[in-house]
């Protein structure tokens, strides 16, 4: 297995479904980071064969809630002194703002600028969401 230098203080986002790592990397705007970040694609996973991992060599603030949108199996480990000091459990968020966009071409969000894109959870198993404005239901990821 590929060895990545372990981090002293930071965050490891593990068990990302293979292929979603890059999407998540951009969602967290890590391409703009001025500290060390690593995106590992197709790492070995006992459970699924393949997984993606993101290692962030910094303590950044981010809304872990929306990770649940992608997959509730994703784990977020907080590292300090080279050890995992906290594992965050993910839940499927009830409400998401400005993360996903409505696909309905008749929706007002397609024309009105400067409005929040708001979605409400409909079904936590299917992970489907309803647009605040037009009620269209989507499964984001």
């Amino acid at each position, binding site marked *: 297995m590929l060895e990545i230098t372990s981090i002293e203080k930071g965050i490891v986002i593990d068990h990302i479904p293979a292929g979603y790592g890059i999407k998540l990397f951009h969602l967290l705007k890590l391409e703009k980071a001025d500290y060390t970040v690593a995106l590992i694609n197709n790492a070995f996973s006992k459970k699924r064969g393949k997984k993606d991992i993101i290692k962030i060599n910094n303590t950044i603030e981010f809304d872990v809630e929306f990770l649940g949108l992608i997959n509730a199996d994703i784990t977020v480990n907080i590292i300090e002194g080279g050890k995992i000091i906290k594992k965050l459990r993910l839940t499927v968020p009830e409400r998401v703002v400005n993360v996903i966009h409505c696909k309905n071409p008749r929706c007002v969000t397609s024309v009105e600028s400067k409005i929040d894109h708001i979605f409400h959870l409909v079904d936590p198993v299917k992970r489907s969401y309803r647009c605040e404005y*037009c009620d269209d239901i989507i499964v984001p990821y």
Partner: protein
Amino acid sequence: MLKGKSLIDPSDFSKEEFREIFDLAHEIAKDPLKYKKSCEDKILATLFFEPSTRTRFSFEAAMLRLGGQVIGFSEPNSSSVAKGESIADTIRTVENYADLAVMRHPKEGAPRVAVQSVKFPVINAGDGGHLHPTQTLTDILTIEMLKGSVENKVYGFCGDLKFGRTVHSLIKFLSNYDGVRFILVSPEELTIPEYVREEITRKNVPFIEVDKLKEHLKEMDFLYMTRVQRERFFNEEDYIRLKDSFILDAEKMKHAGPETYILHPLPRVNEISIDVDDDPRAQYFNQARNGMYVRMALILKLLGIK
């Protein structure tokens, strides 16, 4: 308390709040002249970003019969909207002049954007193929006048159930009441949208989806007919193929029950043949007057006058 509230979606008000509006609407219907000075110093803004005569007239007549004044536009091309002004900016400007606003917009959810931007009451008068809650108020007042209450009834819906905003609003409203059952008649391409199906499923409202009208007419207390509208289609061929699919005529009415009332939000094109008009079960022309009364009641409640 309805004072200061907005009506965008039928789920914005509680059952009790709707009851207040209908009770007042029944009172107004008995003696409309009693209310002719109720809104003397009030102004209603009618913002029609999409042409409509019927709904706009109904709101304007309602406000004028309450003694109020009306400002607004019905031709978006001639307004600031044509210059690219946002919905939020338009409604914020209007809030300086009027006491409440009515909005029709081709984009779904536009009135929700308006509500987020202002503090005065905003009423959704139809947003794209989404909702049309004041038509629902009209429909419910008519249903109550004909059969006393909305509970324990079978409601048939026929035609364009996918883009029919009057249908979505009425189904959403009715699904909160006991003993309600739906028979949904449409071609496969025009069945109810997923969010409506999700809602009635979650609320355990029994419903069936069929593509033949005749067989089910007898069990319906009300049949709600709708028009298949050209503007809801991206493609002309689909429109032409589906527009004549579900037509109600005198021959089909023979299969309906003696008290199966026919409702329609109007305007009608050809989905109800004119030979049905003289049938006492045809109630669609009576709906229009009720629409004005119930809008009078809504205005009075949102302004906190009654």
